[in-house]
């Protein structure tokens, strides 16, 4: 249970978290995660391979690594997982957003809506207001160019399609019309960006550029502003099931039953769109423990990569993580599209399988390079089973299926072990296969 929860709601277990959560019920463990403060980052500061500190505002590689570092060293991984969820949900890409402070400031904003120890009443409505009026979104969806003379429909469309409603409801009927998109876009016009001081960049409302006329959106009429049109959209009956289902699938691969969906929708709407009770309800749902003996959800690349770092007790000392995340198909701050990353089984193909194995191989190689021997220790009298066990402990004791254990033990027993070189190679192979093989891809 502890491994399941720490992977799904974080980046995998450490020996410390295993000890801290051991014996708790799912409810108690979840309550502890949700209530835990972010705390100070632990471990050494991230550096380049020449030992110099990261410069996230000067290099996009460093920008990505700085967030990864936070995920690796945070005291409460759930906060970073949820922050990443909001990044996926309100996807904006550094590729279209400059200066980079717009991205880091948005990241901080999303983190405030993910830290329920500090912000127990954080709610989705306020989050949409702030993200929509924030400079990163205004730039990414070109809302800053939308004026009453030249309405830009980009944000108005995504507000409904991707952020709040989805195209159709559960019965397959459209949630909104093209006219609703155009009318909503009129309401959201007039926002601009003041980024003269990039560190304090803000979106601001310029009334003279706003279309102040009457708009009819989703059957309601008024001289709507941005926030008012967000309220109209959130009052749509499809909003709660849409948001609830999306958040559910961050943690659970199978669809919620109709009864569960009703229950979650009720929890969410009755609390006034608060996020903490909803997150808690999902994480404590029995479906979290489905297939507990055989993990059944593919780890997103960021979870796999950060989890491997944590399992090995490594910090960021070069740009390896940046490179492998790109090869695995998920670079934070660079979602491929405004719809974010697709996820699920779509993560895996021949290319990404190689990249995922390469992640384990490269991290292990980096770890060995820090040892005096520049390689795993040679233990001459070690039995094949001992070699297996030592390798398993060295990579953080990840889940392995019985069949996988048999297969790796068979390898361990039959691998050449005459010379030190043979035995070290066996140790290298076992560790890489445990950390980067097919079983390591699920949580």
């Amino acid at each position: 249970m502890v491994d399941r929860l720490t992977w799904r709601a974080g980046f995998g277990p450490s020996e410390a978290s295993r000890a801290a959560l051991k014996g708790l019920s799912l409810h108690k463990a979840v309550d502890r995660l949700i209530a835990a403060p972010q705390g100070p980052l632990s471990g050494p500061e991230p550096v380049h391979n020449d030992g110099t500190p990261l410069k996230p505002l000067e290099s996009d590689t460093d920008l990505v690594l700085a967030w990864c570092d936070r995920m690796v060293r945070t005291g409460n991984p759930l906060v970073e997982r949820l922050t990443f969820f909001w990044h996926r949900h309100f996807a904006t890409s550094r590729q279209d957003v400059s200066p980079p402070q717009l991205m880091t400031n948005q990241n901080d904003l999303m983190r405030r809506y993910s830290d329920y120890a500090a912000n127990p009443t954080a709610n989705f409505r306020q989050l949409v207001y702030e993200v929509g009026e924030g400079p990163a979104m205004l730039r990414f969806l070109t809302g800053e160019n939308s004026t009453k003379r030249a309405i830009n429909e980009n944000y108005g469309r995504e507000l409904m399609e991707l952020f709040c409603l989805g195209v159709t409801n559960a019965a397959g009927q459209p949630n909104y019309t093209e006219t609703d998109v155009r009318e909503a876009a009129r309401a959201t016009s007039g926002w601009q960006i003041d980024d003269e001081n990039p560190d304090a960049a803000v979106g601001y409302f310029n009334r003279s550029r706003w279309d102040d006329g009457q708009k009819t959106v989703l059957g309601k009429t008024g001289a709507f502003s941005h926030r008012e049109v967000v309220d109209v959209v959130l009052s749509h009956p499809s909003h709660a099931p849409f948001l609830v289902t999306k958040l559910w699938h961050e943690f659970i691969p199978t669809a919620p039953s109709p009864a569960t969906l009703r229950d979650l929708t009720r929890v969410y709407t009755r609390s006034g769109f608060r996020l903490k009770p909803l997150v808690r309800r999902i994480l404590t749902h029995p479906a979290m423990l489905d297939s507990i003996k055989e993990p059944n959800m593919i780890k997103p690349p960021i979870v796999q990569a950060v989890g491997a770092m944590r399992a090995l007790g490594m910090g960021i000392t070069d740009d390896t993580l940046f490179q492998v995340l790109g090869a695995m198909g998920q670079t934070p701050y660079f979602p491929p599209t405004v719809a974010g990353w697709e996820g699920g089984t779509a993560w895996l193909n021949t290319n990404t399988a190689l990249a995922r194995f390469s992640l384990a191989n490269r991290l292990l190689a980096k770890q060995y390079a820090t040892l005096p021997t520049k390689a795993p220790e040679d233990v001459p009298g070690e039995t094949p089973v001992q070699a297996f066990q030592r390798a398993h402990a060295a990579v953080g004791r990840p889940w392995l299926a019985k069949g996988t254990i048999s297969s790796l033990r068979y390898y361990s027993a039959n691998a050449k072990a005459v010379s030190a070189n043979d035995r070290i190679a066996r140790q290298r192979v076992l560790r890489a296969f445990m950390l980067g093989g097919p079983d390591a891809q699920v949580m």
Partner: protein
Amino acid sequence: MSDSPDLPMMDPGAAEAIRCADCARSDSLVRDLDPVDVMPISPEALQGFPDGVPRARGMDRRSFLRTGAIGMASVYAATQIDWTRAFEAAVAEGADPANQVVMIFLNGGNDGLNTVVPNGEYAAYLAARPGLARIQGPSTATQVGSTIMPGTGDQHAWANVGISGVGNNGDTRGFDTLWGDGSGGAGSDLAVWPAADYTPANRSHFDSRDYWFAGALQKMSTGWLGRWLDKYGSADNPLQAISLDSSISKQIRTAKAPVSAVQSLNGVEFRVDGVATNLVNTTEQMAPLSLVGAGADNIELAKAREVYGRTVQVSRSLRSLAGAPAAGGYPASNLSQRLQLAATLLSANLGTKAITIDWGSFDTHGNQLQSQDPQLTTLSRALAAFKADLTARGIEGRVLTLVFSEFGRRVETNEGGTDHGAGGLMMAMGSAVRGGMRGDFPGLTVLDRGDLRVTTDFRSVYSSIVGEWLGGEPGAVIPGGPFPLAGGALIG
């Protein structure tokens, strides 16, 4: 091999296109459909037949098994494929080469009015697009010019970024050299429809793409080419239709006929640093881990193991082989890489009837000039290079290339860019095609909610491709017809 696997399809958009916000969402590919198998592609097949004489040079099963393969195709079909049978089917079909289509989808909604300028209504065009319009004549340091299209295009002008010459696309070839004299005769090898779409236009990327891919104004579980393959294609040959992408395009989605996705012809290994291959072949060592069974409902773990196993298969096939030679003359771009691969596959007598390519980032709500112009330059040069490549391989006469996008863009600018519109630009390339301006321009005076009125139903072009090119009854493939093509035959 290096630690970073070669991922030719994943990097390049960044280099050549400023990705605009709304849409480069690649759901134009089918990702909910998992491949059933991976099929090797023989190196001998990929040598092609440059002299144009179709013959299956020694491509029997025995030599195939001996030489291995240099590429792998993900196979999509209703049932498991026996790849040796499939390969034999490919060889058998390849012995009788047929017409082929290449579908290039410009992802995001290309702005046709800034590609082919409505020069006959230049004042209205200029008025609608301050800051965005092309100027007339040569480009200046700050503004892109336009060049009148000869012959049937005399009321239109190419944006100079797409035509040949220094200060234009910088190459000796481009849209203009493909267009020729625009007469529809010899050397006039590009057909242009200035307002192709459907009515009423639905300005959603996703709905519009689905309609274009389905060849119908509704969402369908099969694509128009997929339905053609089901009815007229092979029951065994997954290489009859290939998406040069990580997944298959909805255009070639079938009910039962197998199709495939090919991303790269490069090989790969599971490598562990510090472990010599002659001590432990780590790729082979991965095979047993991929064969461990998973619970019946555990789709995701089963998928993880299956993909690792498939990777081992690919590695086995590629291990001893070098890459296929690629033709030169293309601009450096991801589109070029894929067109080079297309030319290789089309000339390999694999029974390939259709290839799809999903390329670019044309959703230019903002920064349109910076985003669209370099892509038009790349497209014009790559298309011309592709045609030359096909000609050198002796197969140009049997390949028809169609370039399309999910919609055109709003006539009036939104300051810096254009919003989703209707009436997009469609082009068909090939010496078999009757070139020239093949569709009416609807004019800028009367618009439909700010968009061009549609003068060409895209289904009429599809119907002609079925009836005149691939062969078959258009009504059996494109529902809701007939859709006669205005202005007569597509071919000729």
